[in-house]
């Protein structure tokens, strides 16, 4: 598996994957949007507001999946010092933060008509807000430390410590009495949603997953390019400072 952690191999592989991943993301998004906005029925209790679920739930799934990926990449970076793991973790954070912000905003937009409030300090909502702050803290830490090696280690530790929040988010609706409803898709006894709601939701979830993959690949390629540019600029600057010195040495000799 670590064979793929070679940046050059990753570059070649991602070149092949990129168009397919983006094509799948766009296609699934189009199908998912049509299904969720037009073809799916209204709920007998929630009415048409159930359609917010098709953007809210996938964003929530991705917010947690991104953080899981971030923590896993942090772990690999910390233990095996793989450069590509740092690159992947750094590239994931803004995407995860965006999904988390969307989960909070769309949840709020659903909560107002259904619960009668934009926000409640219940365990699920609060733990997702903590996740959002973890993403912000992670990105802030990367930006605050100039030394890339030190930044990678510090952020990896933060990512691993923050991973404790993931089971809290998932099981918050079981452990505490929350305003947020319990799980209806990822359950031990199978989804409790009717197929007419479940399938468009799964298509949107898949679309978000491909969108994340596409964004991640492009962001990782950008980071690799920027590191190469930086290394090349440093090499040139060093050779420029060495060149006059060697000429000087030659003239003295």
């Amino acid at each position, binding site marked *: 598996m670590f064979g793929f952690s070679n940046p050059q191999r990753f570059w070649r592989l991602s070149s092949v994957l990129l168009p397919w991943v983006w094509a799948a993301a766009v296609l699934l998004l189009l199908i998912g949007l049509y299904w969720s906005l037009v073809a799916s029925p209204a709920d007998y209790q929630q*009415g048409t507001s159930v359609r*917010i679920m098709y953007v809210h739930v996938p964003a929530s799934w991705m917010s947690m999946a991104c953080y899981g990926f971030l923590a896993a990449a942090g772990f690999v970076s910390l233990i095996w010092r793989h450069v590509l793991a740092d690159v992947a973790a750094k590239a994931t954070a803004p995407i995860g933060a965006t999904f988390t*912000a969307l989960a909070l905003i769309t949840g709020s937009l*659903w909560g107002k008509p259904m619960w009668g409030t934009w926000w409640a300090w219940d365990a699920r909502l609060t733990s997702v807000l903590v996740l959002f702050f973890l993403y912000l803290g992670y990105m802030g830490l990367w930006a605050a430390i100039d030394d890339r090696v030190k930044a990678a280690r510090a952020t990896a530790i933060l990512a691993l410590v923050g991973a404790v929040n993931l089971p809290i988010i998932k099981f918050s609706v079981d452990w505490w009495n929350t305003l947020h409803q319990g799980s209806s898709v990822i359950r031990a006894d199978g989804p409790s949603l009717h197929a007419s709601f479940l399938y468009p939701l799964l298509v949107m979830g898949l679309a978000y997953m491909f969108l994340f993959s596409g964004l991640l690949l492009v962001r990782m390629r950008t980071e690799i390019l920027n590191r190469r540019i930086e290394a090349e600029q440093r090499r040139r600057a060093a050779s420029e400072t060495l060149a006059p010195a060697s000429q000087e040495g030659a003239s003295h000799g």
Partner: protein
Amino acid sequence: MGDLLQFGNYAGYIWAAYGMSAVALGGLAYFTWHAYGAAKRKARKLEAGE
């Protein structure tokens, strides 16, 4: 397509949720590709010795 506008009292909330999702994810995709393009141009310039 007429169904698109028949969201009753929830239309504002639904369109706000989908609109914000589109703006946030579309914006992220735009800036991601923009940064990638800029990095590629810079690398090409460096390779050309500029």
